Every structure is written in C-alpha cells, then in structure tokens.
C-alpha cells in the first residue's frame, strides 16, 4: 500500500462522544410509546417436572394483557433453537425450545411469560403464578453426571454424555517413550459469567397484514438472529428485520439466538402489539449463557532439556442443561493446544457433559484462552520439573521463523511471525535476569514473589468459508458496501456488528485513506439487516481482518471506477491517470485535477460517463479469506503474595502483542487493556459457583467479582508488527488476545510464587483464602 497517513493513526473513537455523554441509543432507549412489557418467569428449580402452572390469578392482575405458559406456546415453534457443528459434529443434543413445557433443567430456564402494561405490573403478576414442580435430583458435578446411575437430563439421549471424541496428531506413544520427564496434572477452568455491562434486551414489533417482524435486540449477531427468527417462527426471511442498536458489550454472551428474542417476537405476533423485554442483572446472571466450565486432565512428555515432546489431555466441557448454539465451540481448544510450539505429538480427547446449570457457550476467547492456559501451564510445569528457566523452555520449543508458514499437528497453517520476538521484547521490558535475581533475594526474606510468562498464539479472522463450514457449520466471510453520494459523501455498510469495539473509526480510516476522502465524510452503518446484504457479524476477533478487508476492497473498487471516470473527464488514457489524495490527474499535470467529489457528481450523470459504464459509485465486496490469521505475543506478570493473608498483588504487567498491521493503535490498546482486565478477572476474582442443590450461589455482583480499575495494575503495553499475508491490509485481530494471554501469565506467576511450598497448580480463581490455605494449612510446607 501507499504511504499510510490514516491507516495506523491513533484517532479517537467516533462512537465515544455519544456513549460517554449518555446520548447513545440502546434497546432500552427506543421510543416507549405503545409498548407491552414482557416478563419471563423462570424456573427456580434446577431439575424438575412441571406438574402444572395455574395462571388464573396472574391473568386477573392489574395491567396484565396475557400470560402464556410453555405448553401454550409450544405449537408455534417451527424449529428448535439452532445448534451449530462447532468442531464436534459427533455430538448428541436434544432439541432446545425457547421455553420449557413439561420439564425444567436449570435455574433460570423460561417457563412462562407475562405481558402487561408496565414491567412493574408484569413482575407483580408473575408473583401470582402458581407453578407446581416435582423435583428431580439435580446433576451438578460433571464427573458425577457421566458416572453410571446418574440421573439423566435428556431421556432421549440415554445419558448425560454429549460426546466423547478424539483429536490427535503425531505419534504420542513415541513421545512418551522418548521422554525423560512425565508430568500429569489436573487443571481447571472455572465457570465464568460474562457480565456484559448492558444486559440483553429485545423490542419486537410484528405487523400482521404485512406478516413482517422487526426486532431490535442487544445482540452481536443481528444477521443470524434474522435468519433464525424467520425459521423458528415461519416468517419469510425477507419480512424479518433485525436491528442491533448501540450494544453495551457482549464478550460472546450475545453470540446466539436467545429464547427471549423468539418469545418477544411471538408475543408481539400473538398480541398484535410492540413487545419489550429488558433483562435485569439478576436474570442476566443465570439466563445469559456462561463460559469456560472445564476440567482438563493433562499428561506431558518432555526431555530434561525442556523440550516438550508430546501432550495428552482430556477436556471435560460442561455444556450446562442444553447444547447452546456454539456450545461446543470451546472444543476448538483441542485443535489449538499446540500454540506456538513444535510438539511431536498431541493426543486430545474431548468429553461434553450435560448438567443442570445454565448452558455454556462462547466467552471472550472461546476455547483459545483454554488452549493457551493449558499449554502455558504445561511450559511452566516442564520448567519446574526440569529446572530449566521458563523463558528458555519456551525458546527451546518455539516454531522458528524459517518454518513459517508452519502446519500444526492438527493440520492448521500458521500465517506469519517470529514468536521469539515478542518474548524477547517483553523480557527486556521487565529486565528478566535482574528480576529473577530480585526474586531470589526476596525469597530469602520470606517474600513470595512470582514471575509468570505467557507466550500465546491465537487463531482468528473467521474466516475461510470452507474451513469454517467444516469446523463451525457456517461459512464465514466479510462484507462491505461502500456507497458514494451525489455530493461526494460516503456511506459504508459493514457486515460486522460492533458492540463496543469501535469499528466505525478504523473502518472509516480505511476508506478515507484509500479514497482520499475526509474522515468525517464517511458514515459507517452497521447492525441493521434492512440495510445491505447479509453480514457475518462480530465475534472471534474477526472484524478487522475479514470485514475490514472487504471495506478496503470496496474502496479500491470505487477508486478504480473513479479513475476510469476521471480518465474520461480528462480525455486521457486510463493508464495515464493517477489517483491520489482524493484527486485524479494526468501523470505530470497535477494542477489539472478532478476531485473525487466532481467524479462522484459525474457518476450520477450517465451522459458524462464512458460509453457502456453503469452509473453510480457503489461497490459491494464479499471477502473470503484464504486462511485464518494468527496474532501472537508475550505477556509477563510479576506478583507478590502476602504470606499472612494470601492476597495476590500484581506488581507489574507487561504485554507485547503482534496483531499485524494496527489500523488504529488507540483501539488496539483499548482492546488489550480490557482483555487483560478480563483475563485477570478469571485468574484472581471470578467464579460462577453452584451449590450441590443446583442453585447459583454467585448470582449477584456482590458475589460474582468482576475486577474494577482499582483492583488492577498499570498495564505496560508494546506492539510489534508482523503483517499477515492472508489479507491485503496485513491485519490480524486483537479483540481477545489480552484475555487469552493474561490468565495464564498471572496464574503462572502465582504458581511460581508458591513453588517453594511444593505447589504445582492452583485452581482459579486464586483467592486470598485459597492461597492462604495452600501456604499454611493443606500440608503446604516450605521446602
């Protein structure tokens, strides 16, 4: 590309003035007139048969228009909620309908809906419902769930086992045979609750004569919601419009078609009224899907010089009560364990389990944080067992630059990168050798200092249509429509659906740079299925590399057409015309130029166009990338653990990320900061805990601890840039990298700090109480 001025500039997000002055428009801010409010009555039982629901008293309550039970709505669904392949085509799963009819399987599952003049009236009426349950024994623990004799959630499946699959490459027997060191370790990924700052919300408006449905939803995937509402409710897809207005965060929790979207639409169709449902935080904690919830049993074969030969592991994935839309996506970890390392063999087994808990699905990173966590813990376990420094272990095992593009044991092709570069940079930033000396000194003084490394490799840019169809069941691509108006202003419609990331700014930068248009002349539109063709929405750090490329290619197409028009206007040969900074001129005479605005004007006057050329300046691109993109980086956490209280204090946090070309470094940094915070949340604070009775014990933000700014250290961030060869901009992805890297960095540091106590691995979160017990109670004695 030509010399960049706008691509790569740290321009402030154009979304922010509205958002930070409270003038944005979220679902709850939509015009309020004529609304009917829906309240979803949810199961208070983790596992029970519904014997009956008496709705008479609720129907008579003030302000109530209707009450529907699951039984009364069941015949309206023409399809259950969607379930995608998501890396496990072998899985068994039951049909999952938006509302329970005769049996409930998790606390929070919808059992009835109340429609009333106000939300308050609906909630009051809900208390008057008489629901009779016959309790069934709850299945909470994953391992007990698949033990013989366990109560079964879905009778038709015969057991709680959704799948038991193998994903392997290389000769694992040989790896273990050749090993000097063999390690086995159980490693847990606790259940996490995504807690987007804006809970979900839906407004549905069905127009009976047109058989047309408009739904505003706080979703990451308006285009998919459109398709599925059409399928489930039997409305032609052309008659369904879904709008994602401002959306206050998702982190994967808004990546699926939810029961409430269907229920609100259905209620609107039944009542002929506009129906609104807003999720409150209490609902959000149990009705919106959870993440992670895995147990890993890991065995490692290594040489005493730190070379990791092979890894064998079983991933137990707690799917919760039903298989969610991308419920098995986290099994992607079985394909990615290898990370940036050159293992000889990988032998993975995946086991999916149903339990009486909220379904799990994608949560920031979705399978990649898990893969990174496991392999990064493995690197440290090998370092601990062999006495080789953790940085050296990583260096020894890194894939080398000259081996790129490297094909992994699972047949994935890495795109580019010298993985040692980010590690070297991070080590330099913390003065690693010096730091290790200080650690040794402090240990002598009885202080528990730990240094944790995490050198991750991430896959993103979903993605190649063929590959994603095979793996995820849907072919992904990028989409952008660039449309120049008569006056030379531009509208850019993108296929991604940002929900806090700030796509509008960098995507406008791409167009401004390519066409030489002023940044403010480009309006970026997203999240409305009535505008533009099908888009693939936003998840998995895909938008910049895939939709961003579509934006770029559309701009290039517009530029090329503009050049042709300019040649005609300038009465010159096309190849003699230079297009630069929004102007076209004949080579050598830049003073006699036509501007893009003049060219656009001509584009709408057919007589001024070359013969045979169609009018207008608008171009649509569907970009199907040839491969995924593979960002990588190195994070280092330095922690000190208070011997007396067990509290972890992060003293330094250094992150060096390589996400290819940075379209807007300010946004890249923001994504890294937020991601690190979220990953630290998993390491130190967050825990979705269920009691043996199947009740969620951390159902409020008093008990479920998301980190806040005052609980976090300063982040020292640096970037390296290895452009991806997969797309013309060279961009990779940065939406999840922070989360993927930081959990392992912090937990490796905590484990390092506690290694004198003989500690090898710590279940997350590393709470003060847990660490104190490890240091002083559970036989933990200093070597």
């Amino acid at each position, binding site marked *: 590309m030509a010399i960049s001025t706008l691509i790569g500039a740290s321009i402030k997000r154009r979304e922010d003035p509205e958002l930070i002055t409270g003038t944005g428009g979220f679902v709850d801010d939509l015009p309020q007139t004529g609304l009917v409010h829906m309240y979803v009555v949810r199961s208070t039982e983790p596992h029970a048969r519904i014997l009956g629901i008496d709705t008479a008293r609720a129907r008579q309550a003030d302000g109530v228009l209707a009450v529907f039970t699951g039984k009364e709505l069941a015949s309206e669904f023409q399809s259950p909620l969607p379930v995608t392949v998501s890396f496990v085509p072998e899985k068994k799963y039951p049909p999952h309908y938006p509302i329970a009819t005769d049996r409930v399987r998790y606390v929070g599952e919808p059992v009835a809906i109340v429609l009333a003049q106000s939300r308050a009236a609906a909630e009051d009426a809900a208390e008057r419902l008489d629901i009779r349950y016959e309790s069934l024994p709850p299945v909470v623990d994953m391992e007990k769930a698949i033990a013989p004799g366990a109560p079964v959630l879905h009778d038709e499946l015969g057991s709680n086992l959704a799948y038991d699959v193998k994903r392997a490459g290389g000769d694992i027997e040989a790896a273990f045979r050749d090993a000097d060191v063999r390690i086995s370790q159980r490693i847990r990924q606790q259940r996490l609750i995504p807690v987007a700052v804006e809970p979900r919300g839906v407004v549905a408006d069905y127009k009976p004569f047109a058989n047309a449905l408009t739904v505003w939803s706080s979703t990451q995937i308006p285009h998919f919601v459109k398709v599925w509402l059409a399928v489930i409710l039997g409305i032609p897809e052309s008659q369904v419009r879904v709008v994602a207005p401002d959306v206050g965060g998702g982190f994967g929790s808004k990546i699926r078609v939810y029961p409430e979207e269907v229920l609100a639409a259905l209620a609107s169709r039944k009542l002929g009224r506009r129906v609104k449902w807003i999720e409150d935080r209490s609902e959000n904690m149990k009705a919106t899907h959870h993440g992670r919830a895995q147990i890993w049993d890991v065995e490692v074969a290594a040489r005493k010089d730190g070379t990791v030969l092979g890894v064998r592991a079983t991933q137990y994935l707690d799917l919760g009560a039903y298989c969610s839309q991308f419920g098995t996506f986290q099994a992607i970890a079985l394909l990615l364990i290898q990370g940036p390392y050159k293992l000889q063999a990988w032998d993975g087994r995946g086991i999916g389990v149903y339990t009486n808990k909220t379904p799990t699905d994608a949560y920031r990173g979705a399978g990649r944080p898990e893969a990174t966590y496991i392999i990064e813990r493995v690197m440290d376990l090998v370092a601990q067992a062999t006495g080789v420094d953790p940085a050296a272990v990583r260096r020894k095992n890194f894939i080398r630059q000259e081996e790129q593009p490297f094909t992994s044991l699972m047949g994935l092709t890495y795109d580019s990168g010298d993985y040692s570069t980010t590690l070297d940079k991070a080590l330099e930033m913390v003065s690693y050798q010096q730091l290790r000396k200080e650690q040794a000194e402090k240990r002598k003084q009885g202080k528990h200092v730990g240094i944790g490394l995490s050198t991750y490799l991430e896959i993103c840019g979903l993605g190649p249509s063929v590959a994603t169809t095979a793996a995820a069941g849907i072919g992904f691509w990028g989409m952008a429509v660039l449309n120049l108006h008569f006056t030379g202003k531009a509208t850019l419609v993108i296929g991604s659906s940002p929900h806090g990331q700030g796509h509008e700014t960098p995507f406008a930068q791409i167009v401004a740079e390519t066409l030489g248009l002023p940044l403010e002349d480009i309006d970026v539109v997203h999240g409305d299925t009535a505008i533009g063709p099908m888009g693939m929405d936003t998840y998995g750090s895909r938008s910049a590399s895939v939709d961003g490329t579509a934006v770029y290619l559309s701009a290039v197409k517009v530029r090329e057409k503009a050049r042709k028009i300019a040649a005609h206007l300038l009465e010159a040969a096309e190849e003699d015309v230079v297009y630069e900074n929004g102007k076209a001129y004949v080579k050598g005479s830049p003073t006699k130029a036509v501007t893009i605005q003049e060219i656009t004007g001509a584009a709408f006057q057919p007589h001024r166009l070359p013969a045979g050329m169609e009018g207008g300046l608008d171009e649509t691109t569907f970009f199907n990338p040839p491969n995924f993109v593979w960002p990588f980086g190195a994070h280092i956490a330095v922690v000190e653990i208070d011997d007396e209280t067990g509290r972890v204090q992060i003293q330094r946090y250094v992150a060096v990320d390589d996400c290819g070309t940075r379209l807007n470094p300010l946004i890249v940094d923001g994504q890294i900061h937020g991601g690190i915070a979220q990953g630290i949340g998993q390491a130190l604070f967050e825990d979705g805990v269920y009691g043996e009775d199947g009740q969620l014990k*951390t159902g409020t933000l008093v008990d479920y601890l998301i980190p806040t700014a005052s609980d976090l250290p300063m982040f020292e961030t640096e970037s390296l840039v290895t452009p991806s060869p997969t797309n013309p901009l060279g961009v990779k992805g940065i939406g999840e990298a922070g989360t993927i890297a930081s959990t392992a960095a912090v937990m490796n540091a905590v484990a390092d700090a506690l290694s004198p106590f003989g500690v090898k691995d710590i279940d997350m979160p590393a709470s003060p109480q847990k660490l104190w017990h490890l240091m002083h109670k559970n036989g933990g004695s200093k070597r």
Partner: protein
Amino acid sequence: MIPASFDYIAVKTVPEAVAELAKHGDESKLLAGGHSLIPLMKLRLSTPSFVVDIGRVKDLNYIRRTDGHIAFGALTTHHDIEFSDLVKEQLPLLASAASQIGDPQVRNRGTMGGAAAHADPSGDYPTCLLTLDAEFDVVGPNGRRVIKASDFFVGTFTSALQPDEVLTEIRVPAPPAGTRGTYLKFSRRSQDWAIVAVAAQATVKDRKFQEIRIGLTSMGGTPLRASAVEAALRGKSADADTIRKAAEKAAEGTDPPQDLNGSPDYRRHLATVLTRRALEQLTAGR
C-alpha cells in the same frame, strides 16, 4: 428487579416522620440514602407498603463538636465524613472507615444513620460506632431517648430501634489529644464488603497504651469488640512484642461466618493479622 408497589411520602421534619411511621405501623420503612433499603426492595426481600423519605429533612446533616463529643446528624453522608477536617483530626478511625465504604456513588448517597439502623454485621460503621462507644439519639411517639452503642446493635440486621422511631443524631466521645485511629478492611476487591475488618483507636503516652479500643467487622452476627486484646494492652507498653501477643487474642469469643470468601478459620486468622497491623500502624514512631 422492580420493587413491589408501595406508597411514598417525603417528609420535611422529624415529628412528621414519626407521625407517618405511627400511622402506617410495621408496613412502613424510613428511607435515607436508600443504598441498603432500595437494593433489598428491588430484590423484593423487603416489601414495605409505605416508604417515608427523610432525605429532605433539614438539620439532620451536620458534623459538629459539642461538649466532649463529636455529633453527627443521621443524614450525614459517608463522603462528608471521609472529607471532614474535624473527623480527620479527631476521629481518624471514622474517616478511614468512611473512605473504604463501597464506591463513590455509595459514599455520596449512603448515610451514617442509615448504616447504623441497618445494623449489618459486615457494615463498616457499626463496628466503628461500637468501638468508639457512640450514643444514639432516637425520637419516637413518646419523645426522645438515648441508646448506648453496646445496647444498639442487637443482632444480624437488627438494632434497638423500634419501627416507629427515627434515629436523629449519633455522638462519639472526643478522644484525648494525640489519639490515633485506623480502619483496616480486608476484601477481595476495593469496593467489596469486608471479609474481616478491624477498627482500632489508641491513645499512646510515654510509650504506653493509655486508651485502646478495638472492634471487629464480620466476625459474628453483630459488630464485636476485641475485648481480650484491649485488656491485654490497656496500660501496657506499646512495643512490638506486646502488640503481637495481644493481637493473637483478636478472635477470642468470636463466631465468624462461613461464606465463599472466608471460612471461619481464615477469618479468625485475618482478625489477628489485621489487629496486629492496625496496632503497628497506630504506634509507628511513638
């Protein structure tokens, strides 16, 4: 998360509030800063049918020195206490505790009277007020009465206030010159409730503890005094060894709760650590 329906009145004076409470009886609730009551109502754990808002009553928001006391109007906010020069100078324990309650919104809305009346065993003020031997001015249908702190915190979320009474003023004895105080709160995140907290106020003269007060938060169903520690220190030398030994007694006679963040064992241990650290802080340089 919408409260059950209720009627509401904003009163202008204390007698008016007392009259409204008398009229509506057990079904009514006073509303001050609302930062305990409203969350409970939204979860429908509290469903008063009548809410009497005293937030606009004049002359209940003050901090002043009276004869031998510092007096706080019941509506004084946590924020005002945190930043009051008088409190910082005379009762640094209270300023320190106030600065660690919740987050800025909570500190701007929550009141000392509300926090005391709410009698949460993991609340920060109740422990401080017990530790400081505060007294509580209460007005009811039969006029005014004064309750001592040792009688005020009766049980978990239960104070000695009757449903028809309004707490109007809280008075804390002004300590001798040179008294120091601190509140050490241990929680997972900065804005959280205490897993355990220790309130300490000490007057050290000639390297001896002349006066010593220590209180414990979240170590039982009510705020507690660490009497064994106080006894072990009163009149004793303010040296590291004495402090360490005394602090070991911090959990004596307590019955700490079990929850996700702390086992009783862990809480007992934290109480001794925080007590020692608080005492070290108060005696540093003396």
